[in-house]
């Protein structure tokens, strides 16, 4: 299986360990991820400012993948949502495709509507499959309790995701965690949003949203949060200390990207998965495993 990996804006600069571990794990599981250096921003951040621009940015990225005859595998949930939405729109709405092609033509590009988009974790869940993943596990992580943060755009709006998991009762991440031998922690605020999208508009509210989940997860005695989106990572990783400082609380909740969790279970060393490069260094966790 071969797909174009779409890194988006944040991952290649701020979440290198996510990219590194995803590529490492993918290689082991027979998923070849191809870099397309010309990819730009997916378009999501400008959707609320200028719809047409967002759609055209997304369409250009789709066109780049189509030139190479590849479907897209994303690492960021927001990229997943806008690229999926636009790919589906263009595949079914001929008028929009025509108009889009006219604009792409000005850039010397074309698009015929063939590219499909899937989040990396959804590829693991649906295409690689839990069975294969379980078989690849060499070092079950049964000493860890891991709370999954699904985030929003991985599952919603559900109508663009073929109902592969239910946004009101999601289970894919928990099952993927369980496949590594770790204990998937259930918690009340599991479905809630990280608040990242309004960080620049109302920091107080955004951080409060993140905090509600940090509290909940900490209280459930989780060893780490399982993340699949760099946007959410900003809230729980980079901003974890900031949230704590404002409250005079010291959170020490490591965040792990799912491919890091899986990689550890597959017996890959923490160095190769970049664990120490994560925004919260999971020292205790690494000690426990080695």
């Amino acid at each position, binding site marked *: 299986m071969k797909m174009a990996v779409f890194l988006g804006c944040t991952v290649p600069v701020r979440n290198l360990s996510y990219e590194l571990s995803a590529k490492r794990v993918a290689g082991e599981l027979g998923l070849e991820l191809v870099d397309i250096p010309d990819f730009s921003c997916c378009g999501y951040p400008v959707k609320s400012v200028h719809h047409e621009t967002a759609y055209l940015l997304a369409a250009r990225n789709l066109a780049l993948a189509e030139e190479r005859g590849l479907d897209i595998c994303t690492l960021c949930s927001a990229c997943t949502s806008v690229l999926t939405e636009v790919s589906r729109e263009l595949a079914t709405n001929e008028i929009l495709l025509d108009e889009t092609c006219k604009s792409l033509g000005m850039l010397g590009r074309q698009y015929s509507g063939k590219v499909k988009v899937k989040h990396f974790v959804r590829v693991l869940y649906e295409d690689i499959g839990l069975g294969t993943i379980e078989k690849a596990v060499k070092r079950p992580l049964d000493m860890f309790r891991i709370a999954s943060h699904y985030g929003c755009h991985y599952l*919603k*709006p*559900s*109508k663009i*995701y*073929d*109902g*592969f998991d*239910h*946004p*009101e*009762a999601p289970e894919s991440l928990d099952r993927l965690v369980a496949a590594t031998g770790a204990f998937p922690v259930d918690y*009340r605020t599991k479905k809630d949003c990280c608040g990242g999208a309004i960080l620049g508009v109302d920091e107080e509210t955004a951080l409060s949203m993140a905090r509600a989940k940090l509290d909940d997860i900490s209280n459930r005695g989780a060893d780490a949060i399982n993340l699949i989106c760099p946007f959410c990572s900003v809230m729980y990783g980079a901003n974890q200390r900031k949230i704590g400082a404002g409250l005079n609380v010291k959170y020490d909740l490591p965040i792990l990207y799912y491919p890091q969790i899986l990689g550890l279970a597959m017996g890959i060393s923490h160095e190769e998965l970049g664990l120490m490069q994560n925004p919260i260094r999971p020292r205790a966790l690494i000690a426990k495993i080695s």
Partner: protein
Amino acid sequence: MLQDTGKEPRIGVYVCHCGLNIAGVVDVEAVRESARFLEGVVVVRDNRYTCSEVGQKGIADDIREFKLNRVVVASCSPRLHEKTFRTLLEKSGLNPHLLEMANIREHCSWVHYDNHEAATGKAKDLVRSSVARARLLQPLARTKGRVLPEVMVIGGGVAGISAALYLGGMGIKTYLVEKEPSIGGHMAMLDKTFPTLDCSLCILSPKMVEVAECENIKILSYSEVEKVEGQVGDFRVQVRRKPRYVNEEKCVGCGDCAEKCPVKVKDEFNRNMGTRKAIYIPFPQAIPPAYVIDEHNCRYLTQGKCKICQAVCERGAIEYDQTSYVETIEVGAIIVATGFQPYDPRGLPQYGYGRFPNVITSLDFERLICADGPTYGKLKRPGDSTVPKRVAFIQCVGSRNEASGGAEYKIDIDEEMGSSAGSRDPKAYCSRVCCMITAKQAFMVKEKYPDAEVYVYYIDMRTAGKGFEEFYQRGRHEGIVFLRGKPGEIEEQEDGCLRVVSEDLDSGCILDLVFDMVVLAQGLTPPEGLVEFAQKMNLSRSEDGFLMEGHPKLRPAETAIDGIYLAGCVQFPKDIPDSVAQAGAAAAAAAVMCSKESIEIDPLGPVIDDKLCIGCKLCEMLCPYGAIKVELTDKGPKAKSIEVACKGCGVCGASCSTKAITMKHYTDSQLTAQAKAILEVV
């Protein structure tokens, strides 16, 4: 006779204004003029109301004066006035089948209200194509059909029971078919009824007994309709009689068998909250008052040993060797009263039904508060059998819901919810009864537990009905708090209590409350299997999925098929008095039909040319009604039409590879002429 198809067609075209219904959009004069010089047209006119006395007289006069032998009326749907104009032709000495109608209202002015020019163009096209077909119309002889003075009522809920009693009371032999072991339907499961708080079974069971005692009514319980053939006045219905394994005549309902039966299973009548035995009676007042063996759970029927019930039955009523069989019943009319199934809230997993034991539905609540229910009338929450002190009701669960995200989720949560689990797909319509059911249930909680806190979350309270608003007022006076604002989600806490967050629209606050129990006011959805059932009966369904009435205003208890009538929730959700009223209307319509000595039958159906038929059996395979069969004749295998079973759908004619089959009144040449004319560029 004026009509003579040998002569050149002499066609009169009448374009109707229908007040402004058509004329407000379509340029009627232009349509009239467009038809003036069409081949065969002798006279064209437009009328304000063609169906009026004046309009009809005009046509009759023209038939005489211009010696018309074909009439084209461009007006509304033939479903409304075809009969009117056919009668007019007949009175004027023309064969009624020499009428052609162009529907320039429903198919034109109403749907194209925003484009007058295009609508006028389309009306011209429709009229031109109708004239083309009219030129080729042939007079057809109607046949006389017998009318059997007997009626079948399908469905033994309160609507079916009422219809059967009306008919029986008129002296009409009536078969009441019920798929469950007892008649009674959903009403038998209710504890009380709104707004009077009558005990549901107290008012229903006398009617059930009356049914049992009425000599004109035969109850076919534990039976399902498999096939319907024939037409108005003369239906043949095949009814599958499921084996009870208990002789209905011999069983006196003493209950010795159930007492000794060693097998306990979940009781579907109690919404799986209690248990029953493998030999059981659904509820004490069941009619017929006979026990039934659940063949999927009976130890003898599944494992070949036990027979305890047979040993204890003093009357020798247990018959393990009963088998299912088909009984064919001939009736003149059919009333469909197959009811509804409650919405299954597992389709909205945010409310946790099926995952959180203390989230129940309105029907579950009825059983929980009923003296005959699993808790003997004590309201106990299923999670831990404690009496809830804080109870919330959420309205419009599965109703007034256009789409929930729009996705088809692949989700499975606890499949064991029992037979009464309904559709999970939320419905756009208002289910009409849930506001009052909720008001009643909230009231009942307060009545039994005055200290309980009772909250009702609603979008709009709909209390249009006799005594309804007064009941709602009484509920408020009792201290029930009605909250405008629908919660998006229910969260379960570790103690089994339920957290509900909502926006209270009236105070502007976000309410974050915890309840011991939450009752979801589930909507009403079409009964299970209605799609297949409608196909069997050739009935249409409306967009909401329920069976379509003959006319939304004027034929609410009829269907588009003569001789088949509707009663109760199978047409649309309604409360008990409305179901009973509709049952009365359906019974009256069926009785009118059955009082006729004979009826005229439209001569539709296939004409088979033996010379062309090669006996390939394609028609036989495709006919949905088994109305055409290939038989061996002295000229080889030939298709034969079985007229009584034929519904005139035309599949055989369309599919015949050698063009041996021609449909009467819809001949290939007529339809081709019509199609060609409509595609003609003018």
